[in-house]
């Protein structure tokens, strides 16, 4: 199942060696479907900027990014991989800062560039270590080398750091919620759908290369997944800005994927091939599924933002009457991301749940306890994601418009923008109702990571329950249509009046009476305020007779505010001291160089 393309390259240690294997296949599928649909969408979306902004440059970097993504996923050589990785990073930077007249966008782009380069630094170290020990730059050759546990552990940690920054694992995610809202929407879709998945791809590739890792690595993966997942969705719940909320949800889904990888590694550590393949396969299927529904949601958000000219959810409302098609497609994405049956999110979460329960039942104590933690976290993530997406769908598309000023023009966006969304929504439903094809592809990817072949276990153990799920879904659809017809039948002779909403006796209800996204999320955010740095200003009545009051609330990122900001400002302080001690005379530097040369000479002569 491997196809290798080889060509010589005039770069030291470099060779153009591309390999298509089951692991790259699933990532490549995600890249292809998303690059095409986001690109088509971009044609419609960028119309607004034609003539005003450098659209040509944008298209150039878009295509460069697409190429770099494909090379990153298929590269079979360290130098080629790192080269493509850099091209991908830089191309993404230029795509993010498209609207660079805004200071926030420039800042977000810069943060992205710094964060990813910190990651690349770890990757250089990691690949250097690997190539140094194995004596080759070729992935296949490195995979044949066996590493001592200490080295393997070091490589794993460097990979987790380097690739984790790209993937947005907590607490290295801080660039992500800034970069996604700053970029144009089809770029956010591509970023969230596939660009951050290259981090996951990297982790998978390392799992494949390293073979057996020390036992603790599986626990680290599982716990990182749990933390990212739960915290990601909690932060998402506290957001007021649509694209920022979706960005935090990417962190949650990366958490689910890493959780799946953790289950797979646990299985591999305990020589349980079935568990291994379920864990890795579930994670890979979730990679693909998340590309579909998150791409869809970002494209929908782009349509909403272009229509309302704001990203603030509490300024929206009633958009399903304005954009009926977009609202239905967004609902598909929302249901899929909550992992609800009939849609693809449920299938991959089902498989990961299945793996976790298998681990719980069959593994000895520490493994079983870790699986129990994973199950609880995944259940909590599901419930919180539901709260989060009912909030989004309810405040953006349902109810009445909260907008001050003139109403928006009704009408769905152009076909350039709706057809890509239709493709993605259709794929979500397709995998949700017929998971066989993609499931097999994902499981063969899982087998490939674990170096297993499918003769050693029976995949029908998980495929048969999946067909039970599909059966249930079809019964549900049949029941639903039956009930719709029953209602129509019962109402056939009666008049069905349309009236105002019953407002408990209030008259003259204005749209401002509606619950806002912040008030909907308040009960949960308030419950976990210790974790979230949630802040509230105003809202207290301090006089006997209430006058005008104002309340604002916001949720701040704890990793950013309490970890990186103090750390970086300390670092800035240290550099300032060093800077002050600089003597700005060329002669001094010449002397430094001379002294260093003498030191080297002495060291060599020793």
């Amino acid at each position: 199942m491997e196809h290798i393309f080889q060509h010589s390259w005039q770069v030291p240690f470099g060779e153009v060696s591309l390999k298509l294997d089951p692991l790259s296949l699933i990532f490549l599928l995600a890249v292809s479907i998303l690059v095409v649909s986001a690109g088509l969408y971009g044609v419609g979306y960028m119309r607004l900027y034609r003539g005003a902004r450098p659209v040509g440059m944008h298209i150039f970097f878009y295509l460069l990014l697409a190429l770099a993504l494909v090379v990153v996923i298929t590269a079979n050589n360290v130098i080629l991989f790192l080269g493509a990785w850099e091209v991908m990073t830089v191309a993404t930077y230029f795509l993010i800062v498209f609207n660079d007249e805004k200071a926030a966008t420039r800042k977000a782009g810069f943060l992205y560039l710094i964060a990813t380069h910190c990651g690349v630094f770890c990757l250089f170290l990691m690949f250097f270590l690997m190539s140094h020990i194995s004596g080759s730059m070729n992935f296949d050759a490195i995979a044949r080398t066996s590493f001592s546990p200490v080295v393997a552990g070091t490589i794993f940690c460097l990979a987790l750091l380097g690739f984790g920054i790209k993937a947005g694992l907590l607490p290295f995610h801080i660039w992500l919620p800034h970069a996604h809202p700053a970029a144009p929407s089809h770029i956010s879709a591509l970023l969230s759908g596939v660009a951050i998945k290259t981090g996951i791809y990297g982790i998978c590739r390392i799992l494949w290369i390293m073979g057996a890792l020390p036992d603790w690595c599986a626990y680290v993966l599982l716990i990182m997944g749990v933390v990212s997942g739960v915290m990601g969705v909690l932060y998402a719940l506290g957001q007021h800005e649509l694209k920022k909320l979706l960005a935090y949800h990417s962190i949650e889904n990366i958490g689910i994927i890493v959780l799946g990888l953790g289950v797979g590694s646990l299985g591999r550590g305990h020589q349980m091939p079935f568990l291994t393949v379920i864990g890795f396969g579930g994670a890979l299927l979730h990679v693909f599924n998340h590309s579909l529904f998150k791409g869809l949601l970002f494209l929908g958000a782009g349509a909403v933002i272009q229509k309302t000219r704001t990203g603030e959810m509490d300024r929206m409302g009633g958009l399903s009457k304005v954009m009926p098609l977009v609202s239905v497609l967004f609902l598909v994405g929302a249901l899929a991301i909550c992992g609800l049956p009939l849609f693809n999110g449920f299938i991959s979460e089902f498989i990961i749940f299945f793996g976790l329960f298998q681990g719980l039942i069959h593994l000895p104590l520490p493994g079983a306890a870790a699986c129990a933690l994973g199950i609880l976290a995944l259940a909590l993530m599901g419930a919180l994601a539901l709260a989060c997406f009912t909030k989004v769908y309810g405040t953006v598309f349902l109810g009445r418009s909260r907008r001050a000023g003139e109403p928006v023009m009704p009408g769905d966006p152009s076909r350039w923008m709706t057809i890509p969304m239709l493709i993605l929504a259709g794929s979500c439903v397709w995998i949700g109702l017929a998971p066989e094809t993609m499931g097999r592809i994902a499981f063969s990817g899982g087998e490939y990571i674990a170096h297993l072949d499918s003769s050693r276990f029976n995949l029908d153990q998980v495929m048969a329950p999946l067909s039970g799920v599909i059966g249930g879904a079809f019964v549900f659809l049949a029941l639903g249509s039956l009930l719709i017809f029953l209602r129509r039948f019962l109402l056939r002779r009666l008049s069905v009046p349309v009236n105002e909403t019953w407002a408990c006796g209030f008259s003259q209800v204005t749209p401002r009476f509606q619950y806002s996204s912040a008030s909907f999320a308040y009960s949960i955010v308030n419950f976990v305020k210790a974790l979230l740095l949630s802040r509230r200003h105003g809202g207290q009545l301090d006089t006997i007779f209430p006058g005008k009051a104002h309340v604002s609330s916001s949720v701040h990122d704890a990793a950013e505010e309490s970890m990186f900001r103090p750390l970086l400002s300390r670092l800035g302080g240290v550099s300032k001291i060093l800077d002050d001690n600089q003597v700005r005379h060329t002669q001094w530097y010449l002397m430094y160089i001379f002294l260093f040369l003498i030191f080297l000479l002495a060291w060599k002569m020793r």
Partner: protein
Amino acid sequence: MVSDVYLFIFNISISVENEMMMLILIILHWLIALLLSPFLLGVISKVKAFFAGRVGPSLFQPYYDLSKLFQKSAVYSQTTTWVFRAAPVVALASALLLVLVIPLGGLDAPLKFQGDIFLVAYILALARFFMIAASFDTGFSMEAMGASREAFFACLSELVLFMNFITLALLTRSISLSQMIGADSPLSWSHLGPTLLLVVASLFVVLLAENCRIPIDDPDTHLELTMIHEVMILDHSGVDLAYMTYAAALKFLIFATVLVPILSGWTGVFIKDMSIYITGLLGLAIVVGIVESSMARLRLNRVRNLLLIAFVLAFFGFIVTMWRG
């Protein structure tokens, strides 16, 4: 023909005989659930009336209410969209689907497979998604206020539910609901007494929470500000309200049905099992009625504590199971 459909949907080929049996089983499940579930609500209100020293409405009052609602027309708000009309359909369809996953008395669950517990949890979530969306759709704060509470409490009760699933999966080494609750082979109380007691206690709290009973929510309250579930369906009327009410009744039946086999286990004799089952259901309805009559509704910011207590109980059950190996 039906066997072809079965092959297509369930990927299982079954003989004509089995196929007829399966169809009959499915229809029996729906019949029993639809006929029995409103009666349980009648029992609860009768018990409450008894404790309040009233005669109370007839045991069959929920049936009269439902038939009245089914004959009435619906009023729709001009703010609402199709989501509002979809919610009752989704709620009732998902409740009817769940009826197929649970064993009713001696009747096996028609839809059972390893991992059906995830289907149960997420079908419940699907119904909840549409209920919450519908309450946003009305464009008024009261409905969304209830929805906000529902979303929050659901997070906690989902945690409790899965904690219990974990314990039961460890006990029975299975992740199919019928086996986990001891409907296929009874759980032994003499061996597992303490664990099962903890599981039953925390699942009972989940039953109260998910079915909006006192002390979490008061189905009979008349103050919209303090309601959870009732306020969410404030704008539904006629047939839609009937769907919602029926779905709520079925949901109570489903949660009670999960508890009964854990408590007693089946004997394998159909008539005996059915009578144990129905007695168990009535018993649970009476217990719920007693709880409702003897307690006041908790203040809203205390509800989470009750659910957390249920979680702690379930967690102890897990610890005991783990410790015993």
